């Protein structure tokens, strides 16, 4: 029975020891904390030195206006570090490895918070790029000069194409190797490879890369030694005997890991944390999408050893909870400037459960430990859990998953669906010709980065959010015969862009005899926008490859040592760039509307439709209503509409496979994650044939246009699966097809009534099992009622902890803008009746 009530209770954490309660409360004090992990900046002190590398932020349009500020202000705020003689004679990679290590090990403060069981606090570092004067000049000409990358990126965004840039993070380093071999093992391997180089190669780029990596390898070891000393000092001063013993154990742990292999759970977590946080340090980027992979699999042996040696299960969870808190400190990077924008969701993601070899289920005791920790700590943003489900997922796991969903406002994890995901990765292996590295013998060991972007682990420079393309732009260019339907202006200065956009002339739409002719022209424009984004991307990728190596991260990605090539230069065994198709449903619905209004029902001609779009539908309300309400829509399990969705999905994603970066040889592939672009670009792109006005949001990732999924969650999910290719004989994996190897973000909102008791939770479980069969690669579930959200808008102070899923990420409801809040409320209200 459900009882109407004004507002539901917000999920609260529970079963926290005084230690964890204190650490958690302390974290949430935010700016009021004495201790924080805000960026600390270090410079070579030269007058040409630069710290901030904007290429990572080309995909964050909100930051464009601040680029110059960041470039100029970081050196001013930086502490000088004296560089050794002959510094500029070294390669950039060697300079960076030395500099980052020096700053991280010897200049960053090292502290341990009261009661903390894991060491490694400060990691948000902004370090000198270590460019020489002439390198700085060359690089900045390419980056900010006339016709440089920055200018093009800004115009690309202002004219509604989307955005792209070579971005840090978004991959899964080979952490299990560090647990197994320690950095000593990595170091030994690099030394062997360095020795094997010819004299010429030793002097060349391969030699310098390997030397840089050697330096980088010693960074975690030296930092651990520093923390070990600190623990020793603290233990010496500690009056409480229990705490003293903890600090002494931490000291011993740090004297051993991550240099040497870990042997128990505490050591493994310590090793993992220190290794991970230094990736964020090395990239000068607070962790977006640096993900842990299949954590319940590779930590299991350490857990079992510790349990066998008498570790209390609750103490094991206590260690994990400390680990949890450390991940959240990524958000401190720019804490003084507020908790907005990019900091709404980082995505240090881990996967638990999922399929193993021969379809076996890999759920283990540690999987359940993780689920308990997630539940007890939630709501909290990091690390980001992702539970992998498949046909063989065990009932107790599904029960626990459903319980957790029922108990939170949004599911406290993402769900990934193995069969559909693996189908995409096997398709990728075929298309990219890397079946030696991805095949039925290992594809089950995939994992997700950031939000839900599927990749292989430890050898895949997955670059999952680097290209975000508004597919809808091709509709505009088709209707305009290669011209835009409106004048676009520079978002900062308001100056109109006069230069031609360079799109092919595909013909005046009135001349298209049938929908096929229209679609052919549309695909020509789609090919044009894809070419445009891959070309532009290549420019920022080339910039990064030449000037911004990350030698420490390169130590953690298989392939880099073998090739003697930095991970930014294509060193990984697998190198992919995802073109995320943004505005998919708006585009499909626009095609469906053109077909319906012009060809099938002959309600209007192209001239009228174009005039209506240019007028933003003002004066064309009847036509707009027909476009919105009468034209078929994707997302309703309507076979005809979904067939067009599937056709377009196949066509655009096939086009993406044709490209590789010239700079690094990375293969482009398709995915669908729209982060928050579907909101911002809605204000840029003109009205669309589906009835949307300029200023209204576009569709999010692979989701249907908001409000169009009138047949409920099952039909919505069926459409998503159908768009990805559906099922049939000779699928990419079993019966499953999938054109999007990198995955597709799908969000649905369910009413709390669906999980009010055991019987209804069983129904939700049926839904999830059905989703495995028919749905997409990834699902995020919001459990909300509109009244509660409206109350949260009015009384944000009562809802500080209310987490909602936006797309691939969670955000605190009260920290997001009013428009997005309204959007989430609209989504929920729609589902109620």
């Amino acid at each position, binding site marked *: *029975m*459900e*009882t*109407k*009530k004004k507002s539901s209770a917000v999920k609260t954490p529970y079963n926290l020891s005084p230690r964890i309660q204190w650490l958690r409360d302390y974290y949430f004090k935010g700016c009021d904390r004495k201790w924080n992990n805000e960026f600390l900046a270090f410079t070579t002190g030269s007058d040409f030195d630069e710290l901030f590398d904007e290429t990572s932020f080309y995909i964050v349009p909100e930051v464009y206006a601040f680029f110059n500020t960041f470039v100029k202000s970081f050196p001013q705020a930086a502490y000088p570090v004296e560089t050794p003689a002959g510094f500029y004679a070294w390669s950039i990679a060697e300079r960076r490895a030395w500099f980052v290590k020096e700053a991280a090990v010897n200049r960053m403060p090292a502290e341990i918070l009261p009661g903390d069981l894991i060491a490694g606090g400060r990691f948000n570092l902004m370090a000198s790029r270590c460019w020489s004067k002439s390198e700085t000049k060359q690089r900045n000409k390419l980056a900010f000069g006339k016709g440089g990358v920055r200018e093009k990126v800004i115009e690309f965004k202002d004219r509604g194409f989307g955005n792209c840039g070579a971005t840090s993070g978004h991959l899964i380093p080979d952490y299990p190797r560090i647990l197994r071999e320690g950095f000593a093992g990595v170091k030994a391997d690099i030394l062997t490879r360095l020795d094997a180089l010819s004299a010429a190669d030793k002097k060349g780029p391969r030699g310098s890369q390997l030397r840089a990596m050697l330096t980088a390898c010693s960074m975690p070891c030296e930092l651990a030694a520093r923390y070990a000393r600190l623990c020793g000092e603290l233990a010496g001063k500690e009056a409480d005997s229990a705490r003293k013993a903890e600090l002494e154990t931490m000291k011993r742990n740090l004297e051993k890991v991550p240099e040497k292999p870990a042997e128990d759970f505490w050591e493994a977590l310590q090793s993992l944390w220190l290794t991970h946080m230094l990736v964020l340090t090395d990239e000068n980027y607070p962790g977006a999408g640096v993900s842990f992979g299949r954590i319940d699999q590779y930590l299991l042996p350490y857990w079992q050893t510790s349990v066998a040696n008498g570790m209390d299960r609750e103490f094991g969870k206590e260690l994990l909870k400390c680990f949890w808190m450390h991940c959240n400190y990524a958000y401190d990077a720019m804490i003084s400037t507020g908790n907005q924008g990019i900091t709404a969701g980082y995505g240090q993601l881990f996967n638990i459960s999922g399929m193993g070899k021969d379809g076996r289920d890999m759920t283990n005791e540690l999987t359940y430990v993780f689920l308990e920790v997630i539940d007890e700590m939630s709501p909290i943003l990091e690390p980001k859990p992702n539970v992998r489900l498949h046909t063989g997922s065990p009932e107790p796991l599904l029960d626990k998953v459903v319980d957790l969903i029922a108990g939170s406002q949004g599911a406290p994890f993402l769900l990934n669906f193995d069969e559909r995901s693996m189908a995409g990765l096997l398709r990728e292996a075929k298309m990219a010709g890397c079946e030696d590295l991805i095949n039925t013998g290992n594809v089950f060991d995939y994992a997700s980065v950031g939000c839900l972007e599927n990749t292989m682990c430890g050898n895949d420079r997955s670059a999952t959010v680097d290209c975000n393309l508004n597919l809808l732009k091709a509709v505009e260019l088709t209707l305009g015969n290669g011209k835009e339907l409106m004048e676009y202006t520079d978002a900062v200065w308001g100056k109109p862009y006069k230069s031609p956009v360079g799109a092919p002339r595909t013909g005046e739409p009135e001349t298209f005899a049938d929908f096929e002719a229209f679609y052919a022209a549309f695909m020509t424009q789609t090919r044009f926008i894809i070419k445009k984004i891959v070309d532009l991307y290549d420019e920022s990728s080339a910039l990064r490859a030449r000037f911004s190596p990350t030698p420490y991260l390169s130590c953690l990605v298989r392939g880099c040592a073998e090739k003697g090539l930095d991970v930014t230069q294509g060193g990984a065994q697998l190198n992919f760039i995802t073109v995320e198709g943004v505005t998919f449903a708006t585009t499909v619905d626009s095609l469906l509307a053109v077909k319906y209004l012009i060809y099938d029902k002959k309600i209007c001609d192209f001239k009228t439709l174009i005039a209506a779009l240019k007028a933003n539908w003002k004066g064309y*309300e*009847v*036509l707009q*209503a*027909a476009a919105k*309400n*009468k034209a078929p829509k994707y997302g309703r*399990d309507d076979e005809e509409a979904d067939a067009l969705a599937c056709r377009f999905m196949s066509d655009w994603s096939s086009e993406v496979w044709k490209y590789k970066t010239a700079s690094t040889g990375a293969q482009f592939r398709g995915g669908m994650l729209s982060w928050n672009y579907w909101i911002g670009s809605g204000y840029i792109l003109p009205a669309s044939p589906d009835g949307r006005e300029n200023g209204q949001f576009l569709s999010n990732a692979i989701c249907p246009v908001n409000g169009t999924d009138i*047949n*409920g*969650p*099952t*039909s919505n999910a*069926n459409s998503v699966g159908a768009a990805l290719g559906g099922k049939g004989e000779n699928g990419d994996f079993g019966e499953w097809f999938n054109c999007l190897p990198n995955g597709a973000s799908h969000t649905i909102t369910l009413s709390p*009534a*669906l999980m009010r008791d055991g*019987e*209804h939770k*069983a*129904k939700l*479980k*049926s*839904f999830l*099992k*059905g*989703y495995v*069969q*028919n749905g997409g690669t990834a699902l995020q579930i919001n459990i909300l009622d509109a009244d509660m959200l409206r109350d949260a808008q009015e009384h944000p102070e009562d809802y500080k902890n209310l987490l909602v899923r936006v797309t691939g990420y969670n955000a605190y409801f009260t920290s997001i803008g009013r428009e997005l809040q309204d959007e989430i409320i609209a989504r929920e209200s729609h589902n109620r*009746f």
Partner: protein
Amino acid sequence: MEVIISDIQRMSSEDGPGLRVTAFFKGCSLRCEWCHNPECIAFHGELIWNENRCIRCGTCIGVCPNGCLAFDADTLKIDRAKCVACFRCEDACPGAALEGKGKAFTPEKLCRELVKDRAYFGTDGGVTLSGGEALMQPGSVEVLQCLKSRGIQTAVDTCGMVPAETLERALPFTDIVLYDIKVLDNGLHEKLTGCGNGTILENFDLVCRWAEKGGRLWVRTPLIPGATDSPGNIEKIGALIKSKGASVERWELCAFNNLCRDKYRRLNIPWKYRETSLLTESEAKRLAAAAEKTLACAQIRLTGATMKEGETNG
């Protein structure tokens, strides 16, 4: 034989066990005063005007072949005596404000729609035929047959006021019967629903015998303020169920629902319960307790929405 359907509800969680798809058949043999599906009372097609979606373009007025439609100020008036439910207006309405309730499906075509959620049915979900009174349409048996041939679990939600022969033809293709028993007093039943309950109780015997041989039977009793919600009525129904031994698997007490107010307005049908509030939580719980006390069957459930004490409900 074609069937006339008003709506198909995907992912239904309240019409039987598991996740289901429910088809609402048009037309009913009873006239319950509180009916929450008024669009399924009449057998013929009916037009509904959703005023909030209407953009007042007047397109519909022009396409109606019988001149049934006209604006009275801002309100669309439907001359229901003249409307033949051709639904040309629905087709033409750009705002999707006009909605035709009652579309014809062949059993085969209906089944194709109903099985689209098959992957989500799991072990205990399936399709429910509801309404209206599904069994008043002879084609419903063909629909059940068609679903069974595809291996779908079927449920029939019935008021029991149907010819016994139809029931006998339907039961072999039915896994679960959701059987409404509203009031045991014959006179009161006639007053509230337009019919006495003689046939309904006879058919209940029939269904119970079917259930003894393996069919699943759920009894449902709507808790309607001032009509069915006397503890005495609940106790009598409980005793009846108990007298049937173990044939009834479950008894659901369905709290009065007033979200259908707008549907009555849109059909231009006055509704006696317009101003009636939801049951309060304590009223509903008291009735549930009375039901529990009868030990009628293993599962007794209270469903639907109630309100807290002191809350006004609009």
